[in-house]
């Protein structure tokens, strides 16, 4: 069998980059080189990003359908890489000051990215599982990275246990689907599973699949790991978990459900709609009493997962487009917020919302970015989140009007707790009025996140067209 390895350039390049960074981290002993290592990792990731972009427009399958390359997967790969680059870039000084030994840090981030990218392109269950586990295992290491800090370790073990359980549940679901259909290839599955061929085994497998993926995207009621892990993990990792891991999981969720199990849409759509509703309600309501900003963002990310799920319900190109659009703008909003959290933590050594008092006077840029990011998540125009929600919710006004009500009313409720942060930042007097000095890298990242959120809110056409093309390619297999 002839295998065109050039189609795997992204993955191969990323794997090589990860190994080089790992080796460099081992062989360069002095502390001062850590900084250089981060810069090198970013440089490498940029090259990989360039390679990935060049795949735009390619539609090919590899190894008899085990690996799929289309605009849909390229879109999510770009997303994962952009997230990795921005996070590494924006939090380099945090990593330098707060993570003692970093030689594995950057390479593990790269391997986590590799896992995401494999998962995004997966065309069968085995590849899916390998990518998923590579990502999860890397994240477990990263979450527990501050191994002298009990919080970090505790978050790590909690993530490990719940990720292990969810993988097992997911696998069990996959094995049942394999048993019911006799195939592990997603594209073959699409042909085999039609409305007439639904067996109890398949339905049971589907339910387990929903539960397993629910863990990965932190949808309620499978969300309980998220607040603890988000709070305990080093902040850059929290950011990457919230953006990268979630987006990649959504990509494969779309691939399996809309791509493979479209014949069972009737069965899973209602299930996912209920899950989305619970996530939106619970995420937003439980976020209200939180006092730790990372925990608050964790609950808000649960709600965001609910919003994104809305795009799957109709299994239509419009819905997938909404998922992709929203995932991308969510990236900028989340990274903006978490980079501010990092910057503030470096100065105040606290993640409590109270420590943000007077941030607008200590660092106007950080306060503005935080406000804009939070409001974008709430879907206030002219920020990108508004357009994103518009794309998502217009697809379901026919069949799930009740969910539209829940989604939009709860997103206005979410403004309540987002604005409490604004209140602290803008009204309160700082306890320590010294300005927060942020490095150039942080400033640049913040400005990128802010400008992207603003511009995509006012003029979303370029991104919406890209996601439209990507969504179309998804349906041309």
């Amino acid at each position: 069998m002839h295998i065109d390895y050039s189609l795997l350039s992204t993955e191969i390049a990323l794997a090589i980059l990860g190994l080089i960074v790992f080796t460099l981290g081992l062989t360069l002993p002095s502390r001062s080189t850590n900084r250089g290592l981060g810069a090198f990792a970013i440089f490498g990731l940029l090259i990989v990003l360039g390679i990935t972009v060049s795949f735009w427009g390619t539609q090919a399958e590899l190894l008899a359908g085990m690996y799929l390359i289309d605009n849909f997967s390229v879109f999510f790969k770009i997303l994962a890489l952009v997230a990795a680059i921005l996070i590494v870039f924006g939090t380099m000084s945090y990593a330098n000051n707060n993570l003692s030994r970093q030689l594995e840090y950057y390479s593990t981030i790269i391997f986590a990215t590799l896992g995401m990218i494999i998962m995004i392109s997966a065309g069968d269950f085995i590849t899916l599982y390998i990518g998923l586990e590579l990502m999860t295992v890397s994240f477990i290491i990263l979450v527990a990275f501050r191994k002298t800090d009990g919080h970090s370790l505790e978050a790590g073990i909690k993530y490990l246990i719940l990720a292990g359980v969810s993988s097992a549940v997911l696998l069990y679901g996959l094995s049942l689907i394999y048993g019911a259909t006799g195939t592990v290839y997603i594209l073959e599955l699409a042909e085999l599973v039609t409305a007439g061929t639904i067996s109890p085994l398949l339905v049971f497998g589907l339910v387990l699949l929903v539960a397993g993926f629910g863990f990965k995207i932190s949808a309620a009621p499978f969300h309980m790991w998220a607040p603890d892990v988000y709070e305990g993990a080093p902040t850059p990792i929290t950011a990457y978990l919230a953006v990268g891991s979630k987006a990649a999981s959504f990509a494969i969720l779309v691939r399996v459900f809309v791509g493979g199990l479209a014949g069972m849409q009737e069965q899973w759509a209602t299930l996912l709609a209920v899950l989305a509703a619970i996530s939106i309600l619970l995420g937003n309501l439980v976020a209200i009493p939180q006092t730790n900003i990372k925990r608050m963002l964790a609950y808000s990310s649960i709600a965001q997962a609910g919003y994104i799920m809305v795009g799957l319900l109709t299994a239509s190109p419009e819905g997938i487009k909404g998922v992709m659009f929203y995932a991308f703008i969510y990236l900028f909003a989340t990274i903006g917020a978490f980079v501010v959290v990092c910057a503030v933590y470096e100065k105040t050594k606290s993640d409590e919302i109270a420590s943000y008092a007077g941030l607008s006077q200590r660092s106007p840029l950080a306060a503005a970015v935080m406000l804009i990011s939070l409001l974008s998540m709430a879907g206030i125009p002219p920020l990108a989140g508004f357009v994103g929600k518009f794309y998502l919710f217009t697809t379901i006004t026919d069949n799930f009007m009740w969910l539209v009500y829940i989604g939009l009313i709860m997103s206005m409720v979410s403004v309540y707790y987002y604005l409490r942060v604004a209140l602290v930042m803008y009204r309160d007097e700082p306890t320590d009025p010294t300005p927060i000095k942020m490095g150039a890298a942080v400033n640049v990242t913040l400005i990128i996140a802010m400008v992207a959120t603003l511009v995509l809110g006012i003029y979303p056409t370029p991104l919406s067209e890209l996601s439209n093309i990507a969504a179309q390619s998804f349906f041309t297999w």
Partner: protein
Amino acid sequence: MNFPILTTALLAPVIAALVIVFLPREEERLAKSIAAIGTGISLLISIYVYFAYDTSVGGYQFVDFGQPIPWIPDLGVTWYMAVDGLSLPMLLLTNLIGFTAVFASWNVKERAKELMILLLLLIAGVMGTFIAQNLFIFLLFYEVVVIPIYIMVIIWGSSKRVTKEYAGMKLTIYLLIGSAFLLVGVMAIFAKALDITGIPDMSFEGLAQVAFPEQFQIYMFALLLIGFGTLLSMWPLHSWSPDGYAGAPTAVSMIHAGVLKKIGGYGLIRFAIYVFPLGAKFWAPVIAVLGVIGVAYAAMGALAQKDLKYLVGYSSVSHMGYVLLGFATLGLIGVNGAVAIMFAHGVMAALFFSMVGFIYEKTHTRWIPELGGLFQNAPKLAVGFMLAGMASLGLPGLVNFLPEFTVFIASFKVYGILAVIAIAGIIITALYILRAGANSLFGPARPEYKDVKDIRGPEMVPLVVLGSVLVIGGILPSLLFDMINSGVEPLMAHVNDILQMGGGR
């Protein structure tokens, strides 16, 4: 007319805000001057457009770039900035109030730079809603105004009866929840229209041509009524209004009561009634009843108030009842009158709030029993206050008289007894306005206010600008009515066409 003159007017305050961002913190006076220039440019443009608009031709004029510019094609969004006889009075009103609001906050010392930035963004947002002829862009601006208001209330607001945090949050959450219903409606409408026509289009004109089924119209109109009604402080969704105004700084109260509320009324006529005539017909009696309850309830509420800001707040809820009553007639005359009330009340409320703001600034109280005899020391302030008060109770010769009269005539034909109750509201209005004026301005001079200085310099701007509009509008009502008529007539013609065809569409 290809020069994007309306976009220029929209961008002037935004650019001014950007300039102020880069000013050093100490340059307060410069910041205020730049803000005045920014809003002044917009004001001049809107005055020019108002008088250059050809009422005999009607329709959309001054279309930016000559045509709608595609903006988000897959949502049917176009950058469609244009004015007609309905938008223009609102645009003018916005800029009149925006310009004077800058001067009304001339004495703010604390973080004046930030105040000016937010104020300018707020003005630009409000302006955008009135000139955007595309539903999506309208919504964009509609919601954009909420957040600056929140920040302004929590920083510069006053905590008299309720804390400013409470007032700000109440106002914000009320308006946002209202807008959530509106958004649900808009999404469903967009999806439905796309279903029916197959072409994504969100311009008001385009949506009005879509033949929505009657049941759908009734459903959607209810959602829009909740959304816009909240903003218009329709009873029983009004309770944010007095608290919010009392907590807000003067400039915000002026803009909010003056123009922001009117976005609700504007949305009702421009979007809800125009696009869903059958829905409007179904809900019109409900609107009329709610409007009249609002008039009576809020007038009674105002009667009981001792805080000047609460008094004006309740009075504005009461006036919005007349607007709703006018809309509920679904006739040309009634709607004309309602739109004219929106303009007239805007000018009056802004003047009122700015004068109350000055009184508070100078005496440090808004509590009516503690005031008295201000006329002796501050005659100009007292004149401004009484001018606004007289306009509020509908004194002939001021701009408010004729619009209210028109609404009474039109609604009496349609709703009879309801209109009588609404007219009775005027009497209560006269009662509380005169009593407030008498107790706070006249009577013997109180010793504690001996040193109160009259308004002067920049402080005079609100009085001069808004006061002269009140008077000119009263003497030459045709200036206002011709304009409004040219805008409302085609809208109502469309509505009546569809109503006459009945539900058979």
